[in-house]
């Protein structure tokens, strides 16, 4: 399981760095510390996904969080970026405090911070109130980090203000790592009362995310709400049985990373100096002005909708079927309805791109080689996961045994 998440996080970081070269030059940001912050943050994410001890998980969570707090404020000349950084920092530290409190209560209930010892103690019939409270508080902290409703309020503002490549990173990398931690906390510990928690957060995230995304004009905000919705779909898999849920979670994180990083690569390229062109209207006529970029963005958007032949389809399929097999029919119905709502705003962007003439000519810089590479990797991953998902899902299923002895 660790290996798989390490590969995913390393790939995300590599692609984000590829797209950052051009972005940093366009925005005229001095990028000395930028790359080291990204790489050190990636160290934290990898540690987080492989740690089996809550104290180490906490420290790794802090490493990845602090690097993203700082990265969010990297557009120093834009007030909105500093605002994003401060908001993210204040709310983020609040959430980490929740997580730490949960860890402390868990230690109080079971006398250990090791995941396996906690799991044994709970399996032996220790269901004290402390353990329940510990799980709930840890869930609040982790739920904040993956932007699941009702802990999602920060997401649109932060995603709007932060530099676009950083948004690509923080909507995928730390989230993947935190989902790995959630796998341990919810499945390996076999958290008591997890079904109720998941039910509420999954349903709320999907519905709130999709409904709010319908009325957005800024593409970055739209993708922010879409990421809340996707966190909701992903959460559904945690309510399933471990044998189905764990591979579904892993497949979904990989797919979501591929398509979201790709989409943000294009957003960050089109944004231009000072991120001026980020509204949906700015994408009008993109299909005519830059057919290749439009085609790439269409693939990512179709995958985000969940059209067959793209990774998004199988990701949703595995999650929904995993939830269905645990007889969570109500949740699955909410999920499918939400996918239908979600299709509307992705399609709206597609329609604007291809069928609407751009009013004023917005300059599109020629795409540099690094961006080509970034897009090629994301498209290849999205399509590979959509056409030949078998190998990946089998690879993911192997970690079921590690997590459920």
């Amino acid at each position, binding site marked *: 399981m660790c290996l798989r998440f390490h590969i995913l996080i390393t790939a995300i970081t590599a692609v984000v760095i590829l797209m950052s070269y051009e972005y940093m030059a366009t925005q005229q940001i001095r990028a000395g510390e930028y790359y080291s912050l990204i790489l050190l943050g990636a160290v934290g994410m990898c540690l987080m996904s492989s740690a089996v001890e809550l104290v180490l998980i906490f420290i790794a969570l802090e490493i990845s969080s602090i690097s993203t*707090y700082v990265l969010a404020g990297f557009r120093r000349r834009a007030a909105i970026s500093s605002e994003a950084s401060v908001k993210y920092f204040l709310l983020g530290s609040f959430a980490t405090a929740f997580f730490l409190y949960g860890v402390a209560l868990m230690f109080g209930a079971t006398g250990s911070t090791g995941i396996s010892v906690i799991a044994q103690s709970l399996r032996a019939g220790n269901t004290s109130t402390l353990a329940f409270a510990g799980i709930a508080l840890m869930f609040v902290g982790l739920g904040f980090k993956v932007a699941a409703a009702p802990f999602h309020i920060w997401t649109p503002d932060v995603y709007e203000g932060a530099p676009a490549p950083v948004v690509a990173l923080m909507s995928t990398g730390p989230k993947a790592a935190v989902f790995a931690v959630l796998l341990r906390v919810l499945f390996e510990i076999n958290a008591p009362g997890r079904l109720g928690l998941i039910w509420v957060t999954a349903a709320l995230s999907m519905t709130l995310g999709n409904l709010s995304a319908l009325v957005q004009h800024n593409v970055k905000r739209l993708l922010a709400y879409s990421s809340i919705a996707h966190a909701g779909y992903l959460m559904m898999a945690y309510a399933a049985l471990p044998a189905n849920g764990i591979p579904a979670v892993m497949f979904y994180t990989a797919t979501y990373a591929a398509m979201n990083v790709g989409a943000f690569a294009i957003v960050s390229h089109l944004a231009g100096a000072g991120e001026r062109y980020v509204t949906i209207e700015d994408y009008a006529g993109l299909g005519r002005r830059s057919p290749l970029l439009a085609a790439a963005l269409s693939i990512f958007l179709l995958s985000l909708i969940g059209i067959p032949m793209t990774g998004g389809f199988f990701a949703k399929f595995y999650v929904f079927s995993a939830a269905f097999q645990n007889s969570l029919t109500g949740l699955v119905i909410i999920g499918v309805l939400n996918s239908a709502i979600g299709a509307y705003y992705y399609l709206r962007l597609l329609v604007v791109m291809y069928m609407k003439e751009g009013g004023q000519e917005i300059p599109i810089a020629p795409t540099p080689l690094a961006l080509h590479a970034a897009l090629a990797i994301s498209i290849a991953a999205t399509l590979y996961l959509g056409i030949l998902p078998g190998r990946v899902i089998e690879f993911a299923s192997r970690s079921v045994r590690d997590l459920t002895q």
Partner: protein
Amino acid sequence: MLHLSLFLIFGAICITGAINLLVQRHPINSALSLVVVMGSLAVEYLLLGAEFVAAVQVIVYAGAVMVLFVFVIMLLNAGEEEQTSGSRVAILFGIPGMIIGSVLLAWVLVARSGTGEVALGALPGSPRSIARLLFRDFLLPFEVTSVLVLIAIMGAVVLAARPEAVEHTKKEG
């Protein structure tokens, strides 16, 4: 009994200090409330038997860190001094607080015979056992903390530096 009541009293002081820290408008008042929080936390640690941690708490947090805080606040807000004739809170709660304090002290002295004594170092909070935890059982988290500190320092440098315009080295494309 005495132990528990002391623990609860200092816990209440700690929480009151933390709330006061948030409500106060003047930064110096907030900083001083933070001293109260740190001090009462040290007492809580001591009551839990962690005497070494309590000492470190007083030396590092209540001492070094707070001095730094107050110093920075003084440097930033120099000249914003205001004269008050004692706060209303002090007048309202000062005398009752004194009375409660002395009653408590008397009660402790009266009930003293019932409480046992614990020698220094008898509880498992000695530097030796902490070192064993820190450098053996939790060595990896301890070492990883250095990455955390490094990243925090780098972040502070980035955010504190002036956003000067980089020289215009625009590449083609």
